[in-house]
């Protein structure tokens, strides 16, 4: 069942990539949106929609990181830190922890703002670094943030985190135990993230990012304020994961430091690499594929193996092995990702198509 939804979404994405007619693209987007909105009434169960809601959160995270890595070309290996900041915003301000019970909807925006603020705070001193050096610093930041949440026991509940988070309400109606509201909110979130990403890419800022990614020095010569553009990328990218964090925390009704470790950052980078960095549709496909592998395929194979051989293997320990295999495979066979953007395709295959689509 979960595969039906995932396959429909992925097929639609591929179709959008293949068609060049604007109207056809719009039609596919609308059809897909209608399908994802209506189909759950007839088909599926809570378990399926729980996975889909998680998948949607990951799509949002991947779209956010895509702004930083794909658009501006800044390798951020600690993106999960902003996800954690978003989640803990909800955890601390909508739970018995401090007796604060701010509304979910307010916190969605507050978390986005806070994540953006921390994105800028991290960016300001570090964005003068390039390439590998920036990656190392962000990696460090990604490690430090969960550590801080783990050690500020008084405020964050330490290693146990914060439990019994508020169940959100919508005009007085509690979400209850249903996962459907999260699914729909995440869908709206994705739609917004897609719209913002697309507009940003075509904007002045988007062109500045593209220039910086291509050649920072040349971008400077063109009169582009490189530092400010990079800061904007960090802040906007982080804000997406702030919202994702609130959704994630509210759905799970729990936050704890181990949910936001390095593996999450790596997972999201893997989604970008798999799907095709810089290309919005590619990123959606990459994140859907990896989430489905993680949340559906792997557990199923796991139980199949256990049932057949009467073992108790835990395949979830093999996540890193699987990401690694995917990354190596992609680098070998399709280094530009499944659905690449045109610059990257040009870079990696420039010999053949030289004057191609002139």
């Amino acid at each position: 069942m979960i595969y039906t939804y995932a396959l429909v979404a992925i097929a639609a994405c591929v179709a959008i990539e293949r068609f060049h007619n604007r109207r056809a693209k719009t039609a596919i987007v609308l059809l897909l949106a209608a399908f994802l909105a209506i189909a759950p009434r007839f088909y599926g169960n809570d378990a399926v929609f729980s996975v889909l809601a998680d998948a949607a959160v990951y799509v949002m995270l991947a779209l956010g990181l895509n702004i930083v890595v794909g658009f501006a070309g800044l390798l951020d290996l600690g993106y999960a830190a902003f996800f954690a900041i978003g989640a803990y915003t909800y955890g601390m301000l909508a739970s018995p922890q401090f007796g604060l019970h701010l509304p979910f909807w307010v916190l969605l925006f507050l978390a986005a703002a806070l994540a953006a603020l921390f994105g800028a705070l991290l960016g300001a001193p570090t964005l003068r670094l390039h390439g590998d050096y920036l990656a190392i610093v962000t990696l460090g930041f990604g490690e430090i943030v969960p550590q801080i949440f783990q050690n500020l026991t008084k405020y964050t509940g330490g290693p146990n985190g914060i439990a019994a988070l508020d169940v959100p309400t919508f005009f007085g109606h509690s979400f209850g135990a249903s996962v459907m509201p999260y699914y729909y909110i995440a869908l709206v979130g994705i739609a917004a993230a897609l719209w913002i990403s697309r507009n940003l890419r075509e904007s002045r800022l988007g062109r500045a990012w593209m220039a910086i990614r291509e050649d920072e020095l040349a971008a400077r010569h063109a009169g582009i304020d490189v530092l400010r553009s990079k800061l904007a990328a960090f802040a906007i990218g982080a804000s997406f994961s702030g919202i994702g964090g609130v959704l994630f925390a509210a759905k799970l009704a729990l936050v704890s430091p181990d949910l936001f470790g390095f593996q999450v950052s790596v997972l999201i980078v893997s989604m970008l690499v798999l799907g095709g960095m810089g290309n919005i549709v590619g990123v959606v496909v990459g994140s859907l594929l990896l989430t489905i592998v993680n949340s559906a395929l792997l557990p199923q194979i796991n139980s199949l193996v256990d049932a057949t051989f009467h073992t108790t293997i835990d395949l979830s320990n093999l996540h890193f092995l699987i990401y690694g295999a995917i990354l190596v495979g992609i680098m070998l066979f399709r280094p530009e990702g499944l659905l690449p953007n045109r610059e990257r395709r040009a870079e990696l295959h420039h010999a053949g198509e030289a004057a191609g689509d002139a």
Partner: protein
Amino acid sequence: MSALLEVRALDVRYGGIVALRGIDLRVDEGEIVALLGANGAGKTTTLRAISGLLPIRSGEVVFDGSNLRKRSPDAIARLGIGHVPEGRRIFTRMTVRENLELGGFAIASQREAATRIDDALAIFPRLRERIEQRAGTLSGGEQQMLAIGRALIARPRLLLLDEPSLGLAPLVVKQIFEVLRDIHARGTTIVLVEQNARAALALADRGYVLRNGEIARDDTAAALAEDPAVVAAYLGGE
């Protein structure tokens, strides 16, 4: 004539290594000034310091009355200094049009930017033929034209050119220099760094000779071209 650019006692260092020591330069409005010198003499460093791409250790760079010392490269570009960097540095994976559009990044009005791109294409008709082509697929000469065209979009009052003839066939070099003459005739002041000293001195009004990060000589272009020492060192003994 008034000084458009004045460099006073400029010192630049890379780490502990002195790259420029006490450079004094003056470029008047409407001039073409050539910077000559061997590899490593500090020609590129001088241009990069003027553009704000290298930190100035001491000394002053004054452009049209504004001190550039603490300004960022993008602010300096907006003040009216265009820089065509060594090795062209065009965006090879973008189209010719996108490259030119980025040259007009600081221009708020879309229509104004389009007009200026048209003007640049009038100077370089070859680029118009290749407008939707990826810049990396252009020939070396076309890439240099694109680099110059991109810098012109911002309508700089002062154009800094770093080795525009590098790696180009003699015929193409001739074309590029003709274009520079044309750009100058339209009212742009030019500072030209060149290995090809003969061509540079033929175009320039005045020249400076750099040696080991210091100004070794400055004179009119004609006088430099006649000077036996300069001829021996940079023009190939005659």
